């Protein structure tokens, strides 16, 4: 049973679903971090996301999914240069993956058998123009985190090792999930995620029962279940595609920009990335909802996920910064 659980069949967890859909509308938002308890459907949602993403056009034999043959890296030995449509890559970065696996290394098979010095692309190459998913991101080894930060910052993977000198594009959306009780995330990495959401186990019994029922029919009555929710997923995918087209035309009134700035100043978030992400996310939401103009409601809806992880952290504040954001939003936006 390798088909992932359909996205539209996930019960509740609206904040998480919204955040994922919005990154699909505008990949420039820069990824989602999902933090929460075990068994709340974090991994399920991420794996389901792949089915929602519209396919991309890429050069068939290009290891980094380039959109044009001119963009293919020089080291890649291209077979067919035909443009094909392929699903948006969603690449799993397993914990404990070696540096070699992540950035790529000398292709040892070819070196040994044919005596050629060739580059074997790593996970970052495969994730280009797609998603990179890290489960238990807070347990990731520090040196891999350093590496990811560097690549995420520059959008380019540079390999200088074993006599190889290689570079290729590596623009991807980071999706991470984890359980906050097992450790915190470094602020630098936290900042790389555009949105962050906290998920909790549903407290409502009816909702819990519904989760179990759906999962159960997914397992036992697979075909019918997929037929129903597969269609739902397709609807979401269509809306995402429409939203992508609409996105550049969304008007942003001046007062909304001021609201953004006022909100970030009131919260004291570091840097300007907060404002930029807030704006982008709000626009993506407006596009997804089919609106033509950005309004305060959009800001209000996305502020917690766009800003809560960017606040100057009070390490002992246990209420979580989400509530702080909500309070400030109420104060600033009235």
């Amino acid at each position, binding site marked *: *049973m*390798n088909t992932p659980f359909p996205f539209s069949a996930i019960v509740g967890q609206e904040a998480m679903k919204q955040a994922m859909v919005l990154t699909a509308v505008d990949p420039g938002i820069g990824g989602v971090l999902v933090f929460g*308890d*075990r*068994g*709340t*459907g974090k*991994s399920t949602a991420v794996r389901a996301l792949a089915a929602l993403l519209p396919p991309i056009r890429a050069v068939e034999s290009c290891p980094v999914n380039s959109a044009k043959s001119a963009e293919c890296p020089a080291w890649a030995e291209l077979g067919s240069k035909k443009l094909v449509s392929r699903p948006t890559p969603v690449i*799993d970065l*397993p*914990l*404990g993956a*070696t540096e070699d696996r992540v950035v790529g*290394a*000398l292709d*040892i*098979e070819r*070196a*040994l*058998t044919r*005596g*050629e*010095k060739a580059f074997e692309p790593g996970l970052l190459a495969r994730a280009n123009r797609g998603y990179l998913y890290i*489960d*238990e991101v*807070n*347990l990731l*080894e*520090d*040196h891999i985190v350093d590496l990811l930060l560097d690549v995420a910052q520059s959008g380019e993977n540079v390999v200088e*090792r*074993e*006599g190889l000198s290689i570079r290729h594009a590596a623009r991807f959306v980071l999706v991470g999930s984890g*359980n*906050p*009780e*097992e*450790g*915190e995330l470094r602020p630098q990495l936290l900042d790389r995620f555009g949105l962050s959401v906290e998920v909790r*186990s*549903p407290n409502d*019994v009816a909702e*819990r*029962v519904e*989760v*179990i*029922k759906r*999962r*159960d029919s997914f*397992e*036992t009555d697979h075909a019918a279940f997929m037929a129903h929710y597969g269609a739902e997923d397709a609807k979401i995918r269509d809306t995402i595609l429409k939203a992508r087209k609409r996105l550049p035309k969304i008007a942003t009134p001046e007062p909304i920009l001021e609201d953004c700035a006022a909100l970030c100043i009131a919260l004291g978030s570091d840097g300007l990335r907060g404002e930029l992400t807030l704006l982008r996310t709000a626009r993506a939401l407006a596009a997804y909802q089919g609106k033509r103009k950005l309004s305060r409601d959009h800001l209000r809806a996305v502020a917690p996920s766009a800003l809560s992880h960017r606040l100057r952290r009070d*390490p*002992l504040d*246990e209420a979580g910064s989400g509530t702080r954001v909500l309070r400030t939003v109420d104060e600033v936006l009235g």
Partner: protein
Amino acid sequence: MTPDADSWARAALCLRLLLSAPGYLAGATIRMRASPDRDRLLNILQPLNMRRIHPSISDEQLFGGVDLSATLNSIQVIENKGILSDPSTMVVGMAERCGSDLAAKLAHQVDRDVGHCLIALDEGAEPDETLPPALAERLPFHIAPEGRMPKDWRVVPAGTLSVTPAAVTASAADAETLTLLAAQFGIDSLRAPLMALRVARVHAATHKRTCLEQTDLEVAALLVFPHRATRLPQAEPENQVPPPPNPETSQEAESDASSPMPEGDMLVEAVRALLPPDLLAGLVPAGTGRRMGGDGAGQKRKGNRRGRPLPSRPGRLDGRSRIDLIATLRAAAPWQPIRRKAQPDTPGLLIRPSDIRLKRYVEQSDRLLIFAVDASGSAAVSRLNEAKGAVELLLAQAYAARDHVALISFRGTTADLLLPPTRSLVQTKRRLASLPGGGGTPLATGLQQALALATQTRSKGLTPTLIVLTDGRANIALDGSRNRTQAMEDAEQMARVFRAHSIQTLVIDMSARPQAGLKALAGQFDGQYLPLPRADAQALTGAVSATLQG
């Protein structure tokens, strides 16, 4: 039936179900030390064709990859099949030592639901030495039989199932019963009811039924829920003491069959009987059923490795350094055709000394701050709250330095490890805030506990530092007797042990007036002494940072 025999009966049931549908149920945890009993238990699972994996298994072995030595011999790429390539039954030995990275990979395999079955052998001796939670969470059964194996104990295999478990129909009400039951026992994760549903199905299938019956649900609840429960049903989340069992409810359930949820109540009773005793003692804080210590926090991850690997460097083998074989082969590989032309007759790989690459590591062990806080009555009177404030400020600093923190409190006659080493400050703060005061001052016992923790974590590669906050009025000796002189002597003895272990120590005097005895004690520690005359928490933090940097 005695509780021991009962636990064995349950184990037999788990094994029987597991044998019938290994891939569907995904596995079990077996918490037993290596013993003839356990061997017998594993023997029963023999038909599953088990493959052993160990906690430090490599990715190549798990997922498959290039078999380097075979490739070198045949000059043809030879791929190795990994253990996970085909659905198989894996036995993880010493699963409590399994790192979070392996746990994550295995957990993902279980999630993929392609028919792997995972038997985790948990050989932990201490209560908090258990499997990584990410893995334990995904395995339905927890087999931990107690006492000796009964003589007539055996497992009757159900044979080949005529009904596939997935084809057993479960009504919506069945799913609802299990979900409600899980919620009543405070099991947050929704995986638990799902697994229970699968167990119920397999149980029905072994009895050749095609739809679930009450007994199937009962068995499933009994096997899946008890070890996950975090509270007793009907107990308020903040109420740690369970209410006395209400005889009326059960009577009602028996007499009045049309009461709203008679089935559920009976199940509740059955599961309640199997709850771990420490739950009743209120040891598991309500609402947090998650295991605190152990792996988490990344401390074991750090401790297990000898520093972080650096890129290997060319060098000469001199007996002390380790060769990085892969890097060496990588360095040699591109040159093979050229060298072959020069030496066409030499067989095998042509490796020159210039190809040799050596492994390098940078070693850096994380620091662990152990706070031993005196919560006795005398301390509570003086400055317990101030001390709490000070610890909180220190925690903020520990956060900045990315130190690990552990919290021990001692009062009455015992010392408790309130928080095993962690980096989670929220947890620390929560525990600290709820720290009650009162009772005698068992200083030596507190120190003993701190020492055990310090030596244990040191073996994991952390550098422990002890911070004692006390008013020095030790009045409970190590043996628990009320003897002021003996208590002080014991404390001093413990202090000398700390010195022998060369553990950095800071003694903070939180009594109203500085105590000469406590200063002497700090001397025994060979540590710093810091009287706290009406200081504010800020001054205290300053002092601690100065000590730690010095």
